[in-house]
């Protein structure tokens, strides 16, 4: 699969959304909580509380929606500042009640528009990055589809970041890269390759801890082992002292670019965890 095929797969309308993952993992235990308490309830972000076996967790996802109506309602998964502020409110709540935080990321990017700028899109993302870095509870983020730049990172400052096999994560869309850098939209596929945005390449660069095989459907057997893996991971981080937990998160990001050494990318298919 070429990098651009991978981008298309990550954007496919058939992919499971954040709400699908929430339903498959938590079923009826999930209760959605709405609103940022400041401006509005941004439906591009779905969030709430749920039980992971006997462990209460806070779950937050960027959700593109399923059918046309839902997609429009959810603004195709592109959040406004109030969406990021809702996410932060729920994370602070999780911190208060010592619940781990699980984030699902699927967005082409934070929304670009007049209202988004007026209400401080940059400020909202910046605040999430800063606050998530010292949130005193374990955070795990999973990229399930598209990871579009700052709008994705605003839910992905975590102790570990995982990625679905066909998900992508990039500083800019391949289209944006081709048009800005080469003023040529026909070079989109080439841009996708150059940006190193596939799960395999990101694993090579240590940007993610784990690659997860694609579940075929919402009732896939995979979800049982997925639940178990989430539980084990949160347990591991819950046993750390707060200082250890925050140091591990800080150092996770501190390492990027500490020594600017070039990466070599291999074309092998086998660093994918079987779960």
């Amino acid at each position, binding site marked *: 699969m070429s990098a651009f095929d991978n981008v298309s797969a990550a954007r496919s309308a058939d992919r499971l959304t954040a709400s699908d993952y929430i339903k498959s993992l938590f079923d009826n235990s999930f209760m959605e909580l709405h609103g940022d308490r400041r401006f509005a309830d941004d439906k591009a972000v779905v969030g709430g509380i749920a039980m992971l076996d006997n462990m209460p967790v806070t779950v937050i996802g960027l959700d593109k929606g399923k059918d046309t109506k839902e997609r429009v309602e959810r603004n195709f998964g592109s959040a406004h500042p109030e969406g990021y502020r809702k996410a932060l409110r729920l994370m602070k709540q999780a911190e208060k009640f010592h619940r781990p935080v699980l984030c699902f990321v699927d967005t082409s990017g934070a929304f670009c528009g007049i209202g988004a700028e007026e209400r401080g899109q940059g400020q909202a993302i910046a605040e999430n*990055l800063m606050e998530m870095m010292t949130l005193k509870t374990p955070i795990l983020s999973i990229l399930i589809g598209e990871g579009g730049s700052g709008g994705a990172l605003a839910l992905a400052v975590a102790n570990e970041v995982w990625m679905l096999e066909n998900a992508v*994560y990039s500083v800019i869309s391949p289209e944006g890269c081709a048009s800005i850098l080469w003023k040529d939209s026909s070079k989109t596929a080439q841009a996708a390759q150059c940006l190193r945005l596939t799960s395999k390449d990101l694993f090579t660069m240590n940007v993610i801890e784990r690659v997860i095989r694609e579940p075929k459907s919402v009732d896939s057997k995979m979800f049982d082992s997925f639940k178990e893996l989430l539980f084990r991971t949160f347990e591991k981080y819950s046993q750390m002292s707060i200082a250890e937990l925050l140091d591990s998160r800080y150092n996770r990001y501190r390492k990027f670019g500490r020594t600017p050494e070039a990466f070599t990318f291999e074309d092998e298919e086998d660093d994918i965890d079987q779960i």
Partner: protein
Amino acid sequence: MFNSDFLTFLKPKNELESVPVENESESNQPFVPDAMWVKCPKCRHLILASDMEENMKVCPKCNHNFRLNARERIAYTVDADSFQEMDAELVSKNIIGFPDYTRKLAAAKNKSGENESVITGTAKIGGADVVICVMDPTFMMGSMGTVTGEKITRAFEYATHNDLPVICFTLSGGARMQEGILSLMQMAKTSGAVKRHSDKGLLYITVLTDPTTGGVTASFAMEGDIILSEPNALVAFAGPRVIEQTIRQKLPKDFQTAEFLLEKGFIDAVVPRTEMRSTLIKLLSIHNYTKTVTEEEQA
């Protein structure tokens, strides 16, 4: 007798002013018809080069702020001879093998005379010790690569360790796409360093300068305890062209200027360039960062 006004009238109509601005994308750069004169790209006023220096590169007629490179900014801001650069030797590499990036880096170095898009170091401002980070428009328009993020992070870590305030002049076209996801990671890395500095009760002042956009806006530019801006600076997450293309609508006048952000509640004050240093001294002193008295002076 002809008076001098009449003489001016007789001259061929403004031969100096008729010199076209070379390149539109460079229109914010001081355009110099000859060594003596600089033309303001905004009001087309001709400014004597020496007046321009005296006025900190602000047009005396329309107050247009010319872009400053990092060294000029440092000279206008800190006490004379007090700046000591940190991590000057750090240079970017083509870490993900992006086409043409190696050549672009070399060209940027050559054009700017700098190793990266940010200059960091320690200095004194009104006698108070500070850490200062200044981004440079001549190096890939201040784009944030891994070394940019590394230098800013180290500056904050140094300030945290030594209980110093940080002053950061931001200017950036955004994250540097030629370094892929690793440039995006710098947003989280720098934000972490800012947070640790903040949690120690130390002061961080950001000064937004034209243009501050993208990943820099969505990280350390918006994380200051006090956020100042130069007049009329473009400050945005998504740039105006991207927004126009996305929503296919004309943008309101003055959208995304410093004054617009002030009105919307996202910055503390718009400060003219000529008053920036005195404003910083005032803010530092209110936060109890003042002249360090040496033992010699005490005696």
